[in-house]
């Protein structure tokens, strides 16, 4: 339908509907900053929408000057809400720890009391700590430099979502492999946002990895630092896996090979 006619159709809607209003400035949920590298900031934001369909979808991309001071893109990801009881590892101690953080929180605390953060030497240790059967370990020959686990809790300490970010380095390619899952306590799918403070364009690519999973890739143009970045997104068994890489153009082939090596480890399955 053409735009002028849409404007006319909407003008015919019962005007009483246009009178409806929400209280202004309800408190929004805070964005969770999970990852920052090479001037590109990646943020996962939970959103309160019902789930239909599966996978990731590019909602919007924009360049500096289009909408303000940042370039970036937003991807919608539909995740599966796991029962909190499905997390069988030591993570079950976290609700009590978050409740304590909430009790002891002061207005000048640096850390958000709803978030429990712990670091591990390896991704495998973090996975064991979470203890969710559906989690897929990444087996590849890259040097890990540590994994940060963030557990996001609700007001009673209940686990809402879990993020694990593993830092890696392979030659001239810097990598961050991220895993994001949510539980039944987080009534939200997620929007994955990437932001850069400079004028960057993104190209969208998709490919099917060896295991049958669709990999959704957003690749940046070269940043002022000389680095190029990509974010590869895969949803496997209802969990979002993202590989962020920053590399010099001369290491592009190596970066692409790492992307495919990473993506090929996920197998298409239904829960």
């Amino acid at each position: 339908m053409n735009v002028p006619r849409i404007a006319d159709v909407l003008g015919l809607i019962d005007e009483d509907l246009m009178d409806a209003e929400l209280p202004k400035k309800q408190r929004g949920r805070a964005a969770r900053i999970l990852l920052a590298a090479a001037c590109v900031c990646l943020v996962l934001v939970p959103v309160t929408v019902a789930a239909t369909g599966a996978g990731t979808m590019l909602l919007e991309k924009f360049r500096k000057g289009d909408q303000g001071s940042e370039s970036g893109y937003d991807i919608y990801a539909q995740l599966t809400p796991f029962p909190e009881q499905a997390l069988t590892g030591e993570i079950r101690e976290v609700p009590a720890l978050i409740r304590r953080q909430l009790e002891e929180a002061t207005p000048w605390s640096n850390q958000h009391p709803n978030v429990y953060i712990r670091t591990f030497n390896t991704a495998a240790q973090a996975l064991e700590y979470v203890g969710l059967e559906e989690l897929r370990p990444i087996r590849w020959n890259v040097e890990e430099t540590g994994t940060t686990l963030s557990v996001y809790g609700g007001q009673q300490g209940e686990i809402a979502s879990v993020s694990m970010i593993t830092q890696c380095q392979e030659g001239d390619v810097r990598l961050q492999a991220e895993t994001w899952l949510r539980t039944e306590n987080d009534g939200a799918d997620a929007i994955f946002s990437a932001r850069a403070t400079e004028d960057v364009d993104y190209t969208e690519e998709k490919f099917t990895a060896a295991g049958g999973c669709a990999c959704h890739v957003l690749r940046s143009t070269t940043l002022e630092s000389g680095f190029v970045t990509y974010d590869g997104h895969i949803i496997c068994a209802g969990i979002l896996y993202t590989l962020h890489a920053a590399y010099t153009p001369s290491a592009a082939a190596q970066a692409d090979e790492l992307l495919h090596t990473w993506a090929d480890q996920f197998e298409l399955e239904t829960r």
Partner: protein
Amino acid sequence: MEDEAIIQLYIARDEGALRETEAKYGPLCRQLANNILGSAQDAEECVNDVYLALWDAIPPARPRSLKAFAAGVTRRQALKRLRHDAAGKRSAGCLVPLSELAEVLPDESFRPDVKDEELAQLIGRFLKEQSPEARCVFVRRYWYFDSVRDIAGRYGFSENKVKSLLFRSRNRLRDDLRKEGISI
């Protein structure tokens, strides 16, 4: 002043009705006109036309909500002016948000039988069934032509949340229209 009292002033042909309307709903009308016309000066002229139209319309009209009525008149006046100007030189770039809806509403070449009134009724019914959040965000974006940033600021949402609410609403609207036998 309460809407009913302002409407009584219109009915009594008391010019105070215009002053009260300006005081209560002037900013709303000006903002809406500016969203559509993209020019403060044009918006000001448009709002003056709106007051004249309200003066002519009430009575016989006796709106249940003066706010919605005034906003409706403003929207029509601004779109009329935009179309007139677009025939000349002005770009109708402010209507870009509506192109998002073009993907979910039926194309007239495929469904010439679907009347605007019928479609408006279905969309109105759809909106009434939505959560207050989804409904208000939809209305602010596609009826008031607010930017995503303005909507986020208005309700204290993140821009991502606004985009997602709109995205999901469009999908649900498309599904609802399909159930009614109207697909693109």
